[in-house]
């Protein structure tokens, strides 16, 4: 969840509530869904919140929300935008992988240290959230005084160009550096460059922004030093590039609202996509940005009442909308419907239901009285769940400790340490006529492996349960014997005949570990279990690499081969540091149905 750092003094100043002490501010923000997480070394309060209201990623946005909360502001607010002077030309050389650009000019800014820090924070937080780590949208903010606009023709407006650059072509001095570097050199040598290199690597041309003096920004990686914003900057050029026009437009709006809240003036820019450049089809090739138009959605009075379970007067609903920073109008017909205006900094209103949530929050969900729904249904367990439960009850009655092991394991544990080879059993060698468990070495099915696992201990799903039981015994050699353990649990193997190409099944596995553990001890218990379920057990001799030769058998239930039973091979015991014999069995749960 996003975290925003806020200077409480700035928040008091921006809300105009100097009288609020720290604790009151924390309480009020908790009411908005911002949870106090702690304080930074330099006294900033950190608040965590759900990633819907990304307009609250800076102190300015949080202050705006608080002013609505306090009732100091009502309804939709849209700052004035002056007509454009600047143009962003989009050249057809812009890489197709990052075709879109937007921006704004901001004049009359007065950036003290705190305001500059807040702006940088907002930029970074937007990168991390909406910008998806700069891949979807990246923001560059420049000192406009240092940009030399190139008029396309005499007397025309100044412009900058978004274009593609040869990775080893033009050079510029990036932020935090002193030398002229090519884009590729930035990726190789500059700290920020190496961090974001994977966003552009492999492209024929890299995204770049030029003015009359040349390359001055290398989005989404780094800006140039020439146009660096300082506390002395009075006029700013904001540009955003990305893979989605709507996303970068909204990010731009959030920045403009934040700067406007500090008294700056927003001035539009023109964005001209050249013939041959990919342009945002739905909006056209010539844009005026920022786009601060309000959105409209309608929602019925009835839906609000049924979803919140409260009877409202229409005026109450409108009041709630306005306190949420929205505007709403309605006509008094039989079915009241609200036309709701949504300000352009909101990124979370995708559906009229989202407006109902805003009404609920403004009304206060705390004020709702819980009620138990008057809906009658019949409850019950599904069959497999009941069967698993009945088998567990029988196993426990036979003296087994019921286990619950991980389903993820490693090939080492699942195969190697049990002396079993992958691909020697199950679906891997089944002929299609017998059940998969009947085929080959029980437990030797092909693994369902995790793509790029992070830990060597968890690289695949277990193909059988017995290795987990033996691992548990290995882990408990310091505890008292006998250790009779069992599990009714999930296993999976690769099987292209299944929907997800994975065959999932449940197994019953038991192990008797004690000084005098024998085949007979395991079979006696298995026999009792089968008797409980009226199942016919036979144990014809078999060979299995985990068990002692001559002391292993197939588990046949009602004539079908469904598992294995035997005394574990001394090599397997020694491998697991076990100093007592272990007799064990495992078979398909479904055989007891």
């Amino acid at each position: 969840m996003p975290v925003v750092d806020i200077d409480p003094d700035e928040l008091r100043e921006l809300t105009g509530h100097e009288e609020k002490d720290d604790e009151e501010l924390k309480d009020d923000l908790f009411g908005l869904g911002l949870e106090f997480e702690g304080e930074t070394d330099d006294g900033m309060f950190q608040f965590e919140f759900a990633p819907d209201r990304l307009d609250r990623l800076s102190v300015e946005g949080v202050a705006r929300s608080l002013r609505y909360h306090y009732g100091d502001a009502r309804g939709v607010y849209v700052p004035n935008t002056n007509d454009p002077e600047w143009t962003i030309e989009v050249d057809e050389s812009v890489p197709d992988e990052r075709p879109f650009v937007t921006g704004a000019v901001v004049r009359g800014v007065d950036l003290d240290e705190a305001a500059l820090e807040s702006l940088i924070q907002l930029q970074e937080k937007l990168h991390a959230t909406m910008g998806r780590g700069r891949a979807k949208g990246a923001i560059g903010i420049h000192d406009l005084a240092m940009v030399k606009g190139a008029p396309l023709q005499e007397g025309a407006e100044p412009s900058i160009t978004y274009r593609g650059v040869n990775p080893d072509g033009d050079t510029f001095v990036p932020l935090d550096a002193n030398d002229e570097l090519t884009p590729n050199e930035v990726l190789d040598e500059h700290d920020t460059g190496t961090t974001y290199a994977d966003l552009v690597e492999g492209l024929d041309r890299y995204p770049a922004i030029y003015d009359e003096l040349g390359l001055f920004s290398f989005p989404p990686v780094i800006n140039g030093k020439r146009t660096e914003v300082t506390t002395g900057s009075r006029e700013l050029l904001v540009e955003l590039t990305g893979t989605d026009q709507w996303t970068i437009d909204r990010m731009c709006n959030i920045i403009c609202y934040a700067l406007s809240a500090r008294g700056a003036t927003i001035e539009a820019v023109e964005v001209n996509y050249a013939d041959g450049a990919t342009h945002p089809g739905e909006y056209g090739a010539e844009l005026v940005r920022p786009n601060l138009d309000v959105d409209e959605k309608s929602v019925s009075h009835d839906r609000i009442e049924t979803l919140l379970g409260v009877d409202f007067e229409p005026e109450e609903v409108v009041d709630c909308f306005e306190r949420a920073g929205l505007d709403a109008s309605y006509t008094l017909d039989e079915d009241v419907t609200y036309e709701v205006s949504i300000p352009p900094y909101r990124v979370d209103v995708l559906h009229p239901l989202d407006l109902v949530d805003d009404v609920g929050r403004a009304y206060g969900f705390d004020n709702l009285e819980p009620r138990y729904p008057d809906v009658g249904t019949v409850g019950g367990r599904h069959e497999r769940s009941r069967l698993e439960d009945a088998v567990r009850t029988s196993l426990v009655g036979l003296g087994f400790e019921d286990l619950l092991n991980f389903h993820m394991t490693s090939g080492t544990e699942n195969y190697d340490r049990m002396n079993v080879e992958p691909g020697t059993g199950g679906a891997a060698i089944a002929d299609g006529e017998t059940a998969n468990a009947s085929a080959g070495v029980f437990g030797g099915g092909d693994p369902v492996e995790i793509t790029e696992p992070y830990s060597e201990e968890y690289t695949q799903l277990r193909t059988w349960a017995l290795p987990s039981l033996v691992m548990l015994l290995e882990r408990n050699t310091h505890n008292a014997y006998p250790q009779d353990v069992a599990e009714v649990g999930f296993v999976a193997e690769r099987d292209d005949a299944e929907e997800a190409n994975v065959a999932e099944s449940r197994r019953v596995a038991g192990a008797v570990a004690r000084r005098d553990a024998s085949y007979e001890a395991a079979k006696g218990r298995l026999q009792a279990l089968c008797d409980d379920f009226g199942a016919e057990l036979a144990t014809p001799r078999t060979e299995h690499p985990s068990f002692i030769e001559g002391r292993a058998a197939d588990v046949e239930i009602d004539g079908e081969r469904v598992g294995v039973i035997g005394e574990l091979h001394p090599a397997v015991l020694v491998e697991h540091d076990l100093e007592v014999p272990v007799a064990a069995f495992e078979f398909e749960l479904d055989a007891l149905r």
Partner: protein
Amino acid sequence: MRLPERQLAVLEAASATDERTVAEIAAETDLKPETVAGAAFDLADEGLVEVGSATDETLELTDEGRTYVEAGLPETRLYRAGLDAGADAEPVSMGAVIGEAGLDGPEVDIALANFARKGFGSVDGGELSVDPDADPDTDPEATALAALADAGGAGLDADALDVDEAVIDQLDSRGLVAVGESVTRTVRLTDDGVDALMTGVEATETVGALTPELLASGEWRDAEFAEYNVEADAETARGGRKHVLRRTADRVKDVLVGMGFQEMEGPHADADFWINDCLFMPQDHPARTHWDRFALDVDPMEGIPDELMARVEAAHRDGWGVDGDGYHSPWSADFAREVALRGHTTSLSMRYLSGIAGAELGPPQRYFSVEKVYRNDTLDPTHLLEFFQIEGWVMAEDLSVRDLMGTFEEFYRQFGITDIRFKPHYNPYTEPSFELFGEHPETGEEIEIGNSGVFREEVTGPLGVDCDVMAWGLALERLAMLTTGAEDIRDLHGTLADIDFLRNAEVSY
């Protein structure tokens, strides 16, 4: 006089003139030492013997002590290394000597402290001088250690060893020797005991075990049953027990079935379509990146109905309903078909709501599951890579937030958690959404106990559901830790589990 057999045996083995130890008598009578001791105390109660006890000091080498027997005491090693380096003639730099002596870590301080104490030399300004006249070969501490090791190193009788007590104290304070106690019990006949033996004592004919023969023959009528020490501890009988987490799951299932919920089941390995896309999770959502999910190395799932896939795609791209907006995120059917381990059991809810898991469902319905989910997290005392999620949903015409609150209040009340707080929250798949907070039944602490909400129309619409569905989820382990007091979840769940913990966890019901 009649005495039980074992008391008689002890009485006869005891002597009036010598104190005999329990061990000696046990050897002679072929009884276990604890049986002899028990009989002796019984005889003492009768005044026939006296039971005495003597406490002896026992010595045992510690691990550190054993190490020094092999390697030599650190100060001795330092002395020898110093001597080799010529520190008897003139001071040498300490660093070199320490390395040469093979001293490392805390051994360095140990060596320096004792070096000076024993007068092996001196350290001044980082330079070491050794006294050529010192003789570590006769160092009493080293000699004592060697003597202890020669004698076996454990359970040694201090008196039997020819070691100065002050040296033992010194070794004890250095932690090289552990000093313990052993109690030896002795038995001596009293005058009454001698008299009794003179007069003649017979063994009582007692019956040890009640046998089928005794019962059948009726001999039990004349038999005297040997008395047991009924207060003595018995070895704890171990039966099997259902896993503590399963018991918690059973309880949850009981409660939900009682509230009219049907249980769901479904695949652990599933297409991202069912796990995420149906839930209106944008494909570029951070939770869907490589780092959060367990993608499986198998072929994509082909069997997803095309129409359903098209409706879900439409919801993502263009939104649902007249005023709906989609996400401005990329969407591809290939990604939707990729197979992964489910990160939540909401994939089951999606399958049931879509009708693919069985019948088409119309309102009203209640469904639940308590099943395993997989999250790529760091394994620590409160996080597992695999855990159980309680998932539940209610489908009805016109459900309100108040119904949601009422349902969850009722559910948690069954576990003693009251005064639930509903904190407005955001999930991509529900609106409104609430995090549920409740008071820990014992500590009174406010804890998060679940996440809930009403499924968005972008979720229910494409699935063909045109009424309201409210849902919630919660980790079972969280409930279990509350009810069992477990502090490390790994004690409970998985192959690292401690069997003793499972055996001893208190039964909850």
